[in-house]
């Protein structure tokens, strides 16, 4: 399994996209830093970290979809999937290596965002709290959900663009419809999984989740059931498809 993971990392880091992603995270964090510092009442370290991570995490969500979609999409594009599938490793292992690689790649970027944000934060006044750090950590849950969803779309559609489009659209539409339903039909809204993927909401906007009368454990379990279902579907399709032209 380690050698399969090494392959996935090699393929990821040898493209220009990781550099673009890390550059964008750094750029957005620096931009936030100057905006926070240049206000009439300069923000403190906590305010900066809050805005900087929020902005960078938005980009992380997009790059996570792109990188995950390309894990299988690029194999189809370059016709290299057949070579992977001819290997003595089982298809289950190959798929699992791609999933773990996608999760680790997201975590690497997340740690980078944290390191750069907190590095700049230490030059500002004010103290940083554990609660804020916990909220940032909890927001990673939406990235994990997105990886499982994107991987599932990747085995259904051949084109990476379509996979990215579908994932973004599913995310966007469900959140929008869910947002509307919360106001009018909260009992229905609570069954829209996209409203549960970011667990930090329970601490940042608790009223939002109280409207739906749900707890953080309900959300965590509901998301977990979904990602297991996504993976079972993905594994079944990956095992049974011939991927022949």
């Amino acid at each position, binding site marked *: 399994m380690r*050698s*399969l993971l*090494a*392959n996935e990392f*090699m*393929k990821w880091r*040898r*493209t220009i996209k990781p550099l673009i992603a890390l550059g964008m995270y750094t750029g957005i964090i620096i931009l936030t830093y100057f905006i926070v510092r240049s206000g009439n009442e300069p923000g403190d370290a906590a305010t900066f970290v809050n805005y900087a991570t929020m902005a960078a995490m938005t980009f992380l969500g997009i790059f996570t979809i792109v990188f995950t979609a390309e894990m299988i999409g*690029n194999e189809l594009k*370059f*016709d*290299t999937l*057949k*070579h*992977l*599938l*001819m*290997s*003595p*490793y*089982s298809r289950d292992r190959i798929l699992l290596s791609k999933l773990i690689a996608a999760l680790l790649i997201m975590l690497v970027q997340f740690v980078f965002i944290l390191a750069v944000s907190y590095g700049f934060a230490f030059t500002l006044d004010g103290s940083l709290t554990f609660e804020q750090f916990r909220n940032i950590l909890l927001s990673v849950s939406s990235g994990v959900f997105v990886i499982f969803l994107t991987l599932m779309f990747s085995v259904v559609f051949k084109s990476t663009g379509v996979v990215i489009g579908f994932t973004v659209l599913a995310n966007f539409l469900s959140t929008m419809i869910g947002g509307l339903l919360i106001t009018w039909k909260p009992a229905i809204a609570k069954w829209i999984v996209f409203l549960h993927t970011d667990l930090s909401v329970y601490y940042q906007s608790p009223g939002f989740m109280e409207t739906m009368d749900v707890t953080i454990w309900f959300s965590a379990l509901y998301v977990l059931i979904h990602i297991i279902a996504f993976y079972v579907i993905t594994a079944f399709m990956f095992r049974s498809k*011939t*991927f*022949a032209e």
Partner: protein
Amino acid sequence: MLTVQNVHKKMGKTNVLTNVSFEVVPGEIFGFLGPNGAGKTTTIRIITGLMPATHGSVTVDGFDVATERQEALSRIGAIVENPAFYPYLTGRENLIHAMNLIPGLKKVDLNALGALVGLETKLDMKVKQYSLGMKQRLGIARALLHNPKVLILDEPTNGLDPAGIADLRQYLRHLADHRGIAILISSHLLSEMEMITDRFAIIDHGQIKSVQGGEGEPKTESVILCKVDRADMSEALDVAALTFDDVKIVQQSAETFIIPRPEADIPHLLKHLVDRDIGVYQIGMKHETLEEQFLKLTKKEGGTNHAFITSQ
């Protein structure tokens, strides 16, 4: 070494392969010929574990590809359809990627392997800068990384120049003779196949039509070709018919005819023709080319041949 036994593949309601059976022994180069859509690639996909067979079995060194996947596939090196690589990685990185796909593979001297396929100075170039011929060579290097017992090459001469083809032929012969690798080659280049293979199978419409070239058996059929005086042709045909009353004599032109008999029958036929004062200009064996045999066996209903072969 490689045994394909009664393999049947059904896709939807279509029988893509019907009872395909053949065997490739160690040290043998086995050709796999067939027109487009005949079932060559499907057979190769089943052998390499990319697709399951509906019935039948494929074993490599005694291991079943379907039930003992790891043992079977770790003994196969293959290029299926075309050599595909990650264009943004170098040749060396692509080989490292392939090494990582073989469980338990010990360190391989990639420079030596690169030299073996003539890419020693190009391994650190990105594959997107490679020509098709270089990709073919890299594909062969990748297929040989783990010293496989069976090598499967789908159209391996695509993109190679004549010198490259000759090198490849020599190298494959060396692999078969000195390392005992069983090699299965699928190709449309019939002249190449004729030169490189020990035996070959012709597949059409998902069925093996013929397997030629066993121990002591010629790869292609031979016939007696006789050229006589035009004026004597009719009488010559009568003499031949009387001499060999159990075979079909085919008149090829106004002065030539062929008889599917062995070389040993030439003196007998010649004596009869000369006894009847027939002017014989030429008599000898004509070896049916692989192309002629291929065309004969894969002729479509209605007598037309597959278009691709006549264009080559």
